[in-house]
């Protein structure tokens, strides 16, 4: 058998597995583009967890009650754990965490653009948990069925914690919405600023999405951007109503025939503008990450040196 024939046989077997809803595992053969596509997606997901610690970290030292501070701390701790878990999943595809971090810091790898929006008030801690984690869950629930085993299993574990985050975020909003008029205004302002960017988290319309078709075929992606977004719009509408806040989308209207809400058009110019680097925090988020990484360099070096000394000592004894 020629090597070409061999590859096409492997490719057939790979597609058979995919079509039979079997998981692809790290040691299985996979097309190079599948591997690359996954590395891109999983590492981007990991970076999002990590960069996402910053806007919420921004309110850790200002949380208005000790109870809320404890909840926020434990949420951010979870997010760091998700990052760690996802980096490990990506590493099973033959890339190191150092390489991924380098790609993030050099701007080659992306993270969710939502974190380029500033967290300005305590209400934003509510809106982020409720809407940003909420949108992430809609996406991640569908990824529990993704074709790559370690990623799918990671999503199952992560989703449990994410839904807790969403509930806590919503609980902050609920408390504010039922509080003083100033608190209610704070909640409305946060909702207004985060609603549309949360919708943008699902990516461009299906017709415009660069990675979608192949990802669907390989079952890396299980539902389209627009379908996922619709789910989120639908579930959020009643939640906003329950809060007694004004819906930021003035064109939102229930469509009996479709069984879904129709909504106003997203401002795609803003979407592309923020992705292109013109968000309030694009530079700040990366610089923060780079600064922490550089300031930690001597610590990591010390760790290596200490372990080397220890090993040398043990070798001496042996």
């Amino acid at each position, binding site marked *: 058998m020629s090597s070409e024939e061999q590859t096409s046989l492997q490719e057939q077997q790979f597609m058979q597995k995919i079509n039979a809803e079997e998981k692809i595992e790290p040691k299985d053969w996979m097309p190079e583009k599948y591997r690359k596509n996954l590395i891109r997606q999983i590492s981007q997901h990991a970076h999002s967890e*990590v960069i996402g*610690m*910053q806007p919420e*970290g921004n309110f*850790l*030292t*200002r*949380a*208005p*009650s*000790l*109870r*809320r*501070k*404890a909840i926020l*701390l*434990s949420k*951010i*701790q979870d997010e*760091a*754990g998700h*990052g*760690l878990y996802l*980096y490990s999943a990506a590493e099973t595809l033959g890339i190191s965490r150092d390489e991924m971090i380098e790609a993030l810091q050099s701007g080659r790898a992306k993270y969710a653009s939502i974190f380029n929006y500033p967290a300005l008030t*305590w209400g934003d801690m509510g809106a982020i948990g409720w809407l940003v984690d909420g949108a992430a869950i809609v996406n991640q629930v569908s990824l529990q069925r993704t074709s790559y085993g370690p990623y799918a299993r990671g999503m199952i574990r992560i989703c449990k914690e994410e839904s807790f985050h969403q509930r806590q975020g919503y609980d*902050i909003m609920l*408390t504010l919405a039922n*509080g*003083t008029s*100033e*608190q209610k205004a704070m909640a409305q302002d946060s909702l207004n600023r985060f609603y549309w960017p949360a919708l943008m988290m699902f990516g461009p319309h299906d017709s415009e999405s660069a990675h979608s078709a192949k990802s669907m075929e390989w079952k890396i992606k299980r539902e389209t951007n627009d379908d996922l977004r619709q789910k989120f719009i639908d579930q959020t509408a009643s939640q906003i109503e329950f809060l007694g806040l004004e819906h930021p989308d003035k064109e939102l209207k229930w469509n009996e025939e479709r069984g879904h809400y129709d909504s106003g058009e997203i401002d795609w110019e803003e979407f592309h503008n923020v992705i292109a680097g013109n968000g309030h925090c694009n530079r700040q988020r990366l610089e*923060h990450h780079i*600064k*922490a*990484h550089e*300031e*930690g*360099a*001597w*610590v*990591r*070096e*010390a*760790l290596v*040196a*200490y372990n080397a*000394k220890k090993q040398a000592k043990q070798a001496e004894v042996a």
Partner: protein
Amino acid sequence: MSDTIKDATIEYAIRLGDDANVLGHRISEWVSRGPFLEEDIAYANVALDYIGRARMFYGYASELTNDGRTEDDFAYMRDDRQYRNLLLMELPKEDFAYSQVRQLFIDIYYSLFLPELVKSKDDTLAAIAAKAIKETRYHLRRSRDWVLRLGDGTEESHRRTQRAVDSLWGYTHEMFELDDTEQLLADSGIGVDITQLRDEWHRQVSAILTEATLNIPEDGWAVRGGRIGYHTENLGHLLTEMQFVHRSYPGCQW
């Protein structure tokens, strides 16, 4: 409980709550700024333990005062002159070596203090201590490991760690001093006689510093005042940040 003992116990709970609250705040400043992701997680974890402790101590103070003040009133509605934490807790986070050395001093302190507090005749204080002991065991493992690695790592890490030891040393003396309030509680079997713990603390700290190839400073200088609300300039800034949202919207639920 007599009124004198009760007042002293309230004061004690507030002091211990302030220690935990202020240190927890400082540690939380590390989140997203650690040398690698595992350390961010560890910092968040330790900060969470301390915020949890602050809530338990303040909660007890609130129960005893029984005047409607909540845990948050203690944390958010007092100024730096009213705060009673040890100065060591409020010092800025500085670099990783500084924070780990501070943590080591504090972890050894609590690993001696808490097993004594567990024996307190006051059931609530004893129960809080019992929970905190387990946390401190984990904290100490971590700070001890780090000080060993940093002290005996590279030239730079050694230099930074020694500098941290030298700059923090003067703040450790007040940890082992009793005023009338704490003396009364120690005599009544409620509080801990911390003067008895100093030698053991010194022995354990010295052993680790020596293993880490670090020098143990002379006892030449000592700064004190935390327990009477005479703080460093750092605490005012810390509280400004901590209390800003809470105080900007008076009387709100969060």
